[in-house]
């Protein structure tokens, strides 16, 4: 040990000058970095592989993949890293050493939290970047909505801050596993609330699953994202503020600031809870009146892309361009059979889904409307070919059933169920069978067999359906050309069918 140099005299550095270097050391040595390989595996196994089955639609991928795959995988790791970091002073018996330094305790804790948060946000943004880049490689229209990314970042920050604060206040040996399990259970509660009617469940980003065409036909509706970000930001502020409340945190002024941050956090979280209490399900998403911008209700302008199928143009929104060939070929058999019939649609146009609560619950809607003198059938692609296990055949069957139903004068409800009189049902079934669609009995349909439900065996409608299906296509077409208007008006009985 050598002779000391003459005592240097220095003036105290301002915390703002010291903090970056302290943060650098904390980030460099934070334990969360060791969790990244595990996180990468979880990301690949869940999000990345799932994304391969998703349509390349910006809104859907950004919201659903980030909020329902990236975050649930990431957040337990974030919590674990934050808890381990928060309990560090206690675990390493370093409280005396750090308390005897000039830096206020609150500042020290926040910088320490920054070490864990830095890695957590880096991991999150890395996952988001991969999701966005892979989407950009295949997307044909639009761009990413930012609000889901912001909400996800807020959840990462809130989890990190809350985990750190819990571990700092309760640094026992069981703190880490208990807090991580708590975070996991909180996520599960969020998913459970998605299936309930509880509006408070809307505060969790895990609850709200978007429709497939979110952000395609209408602007991304940010109301719920704003409320969720307010809530999560409030939770983070409460956690960070609470770290500055103990006497060891600093002087009165600093602790007053910490108290103000805590109160502001409580206010923000409470306000968000109040706002979601006023939420209602709009046609394009969850609407919160106080946050709602009327401009979000105006449809986005686009030029549809079309392809002829059976002589009739089938048009989709450009974001769905990749599905157009399959969609057109799936519909072609029926459209070829009905082309030229009076009342048959001259055009099939994709419209926005009206169902917005849950992707798996989103089903089919179709109607024929006169637009600019052209009878057009508006259809929705609620379950895109290849998406969520739905195959092209199922999509084609669903759409053709709707086309046939509305052609003969029946009605298709939101669940895809057809309401028609027996004669209309018999004609619809015959048309579908001719187009290659399996026609099943109502009993088979109740058992969820694949196919479209036709008349019940043994009924007069069933006999008429079999009779009509046995006719040559030209004869059937000729009969329909002569009687379709009466059939649609409900003036044809089963016995009058050929």
């Amino acid at each position, binding site marked *: *040990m050598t002779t000391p140099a003459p*005592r*240097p005299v220095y003036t105290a550095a301002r915390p703002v000058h010291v903090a970056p270097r*302290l943060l650098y*050391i904390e980030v460099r040595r934070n*334990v969360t970095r060791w969790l990244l390989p595990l996180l990468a595996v979880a990301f690949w196994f869940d999000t990345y592989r799932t994304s391969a089955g998703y349509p390349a639609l910006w809104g859907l991928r950004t919201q659903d993949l980030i909020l329902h795959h990236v975050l649930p995988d990431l957040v337990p790791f974030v919590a674990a890293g934050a808890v381990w970091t928060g309990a*560090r002073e206690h675990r390493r*018996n370093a409280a005396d050493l750090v308390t*005897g330094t*000039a830096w206020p305790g609150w500042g020290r804790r926040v910088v320490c939290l920054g070490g864990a948060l830095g890695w957590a946000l880096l991991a999150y943004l890395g996952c988001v970047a991969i999701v966005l880049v892979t989407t950009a490689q295949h997307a044909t229209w639009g761009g990413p909505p930012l609000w889901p990314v912001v909400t996800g970042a807020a959840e990462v920050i809130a989890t990190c801050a809350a985990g750190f604060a819990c571990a700092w206040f309760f640094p026992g040996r069981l703190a880490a596993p208990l807090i991580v399990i708590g975070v996991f259970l909180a996520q599960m509660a969020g998913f459970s609330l998605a299936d309930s009617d509880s509006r408070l469940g809307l505060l969790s980003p895990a609850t709200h699953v978007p429709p497939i065409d979110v952000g395609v036909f209408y602007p991304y509706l940010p109301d719920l994202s704003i409320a969720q970000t307010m809530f999560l930001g409030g939770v983070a502020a409460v956690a960070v503020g609470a770290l500055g409340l103990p006497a060891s945190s600093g002087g009165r002024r600093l602790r007053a600031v910490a108290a103000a941050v805590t109160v502001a956090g409580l206010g923000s979280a409470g306000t968000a809870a109040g706002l979601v209490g006023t939420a209602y399900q709009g046609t394009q998403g969850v609407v919160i009146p106080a946050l709602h911008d009327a401009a979000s209700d105006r449809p986005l302008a686009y030029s549809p892309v079309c392809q002829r199928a059976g002589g009739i143009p089938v048009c989709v929104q450009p974001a769905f361009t990749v599905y157009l060939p399959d969609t057109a070929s799936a519909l072609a058999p029926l459209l070829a059979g009905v082309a030229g019939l009076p009342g048959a649609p001259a055009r099939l146009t994709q419209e926005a889904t009206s169902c917005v609560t849950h992707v798996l619950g989103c089903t089919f809607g179709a109607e024929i409307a006169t637009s600019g003198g052209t009878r057009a059938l508006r259809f929705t692609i609620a379950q895109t070919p290849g998406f969520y296990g739905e195959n092209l055949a199922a999509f084609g069957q669903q759409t053709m059933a709707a086309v046939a139903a509305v052609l003969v004068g029946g009605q298709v409800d939101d669940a895809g169920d057809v309401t028609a009189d027996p004669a209309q049902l018999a004609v619809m079934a015959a048309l579908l069978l001719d187009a290659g669609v399996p026609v099943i009995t109502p009993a088979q349909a109740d058992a969820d067999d694949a196919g479209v439900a036709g008349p019940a065996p043994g009924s007069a409608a069933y006999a008429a359906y079999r009779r009509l299906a046995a006719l040559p296509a030209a004869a059937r077409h000729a009969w329909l050309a002569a009687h379709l208007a009466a059939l649609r008006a409900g003036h044809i009985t089963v016995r009058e069918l050929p």
Partner: protein
Amino acid sequence: MNIELTDLTRRFGRNQAVAGVTLEAGPGVFGLLGPNGAGKTSLLRMLATVIPPTSGRMLLLGRDPRSYERRREIRRRLGYLPQNLGYYPSFTVVEFVEYFALLKDMPPGRVPVAVAAAVERVDLGGKARAKLRTLSGGMLRRVGIAQAIVNDPELLLLDEPTAGLDPEQRVRFRALLRDLGQHATVVVSTHLVEDVGAACTEVALMDAGRIVFHGTPAELTARGAADGAGDSPLERGYTATLASARMTGTRS
């Protein structure tokens, strides 16, 4: 005077760890001796402003640490090595010392030079980039000393600083203490009376929370000339003074 204590007490529940200590100390190396449980560590923790006294008056470097701003001023000029050094195993030696230099409000521009100097002064230059988890107990102790002296403190508090040091390092450490004591008040709490004899200009002996002796090492040695027990003159002075204090305490 850098340390001025008047009737300082500290209680932990019903246990009185420090019972009315009055003490003054200026620049120099001040040895704090005493048996286990005498209150040395509690006194040092109060001097380090880690815990407040229960009662009494304390001025450190001419400032009253009850005020937060004064406490911060003291802490900037303070070096503290606790009895149990809490350390972060994933930090390197340089990072750990730098971390504490920054927490002591040292200007970032001056930190690298100060850290390198502190690490060199404890002979850890060759291990500067080593992770703390790879160091031996003695080396960790030296890292603790380095973080305590990195800001060239005016008040240096060392609790059992030589525990775990090999004889060669201990000799070097005593030299360092003498050098530091030329312009700072260095308080060394230790069980090793030879450290006190070799490095301290003043010594206080604590027992049951009280100062039972305050003087020079020579004066303490003189007290054991007649009936002290021990291998060295200072040890004999230590045991004789302690026995005398306990006898007086029993009588009173």
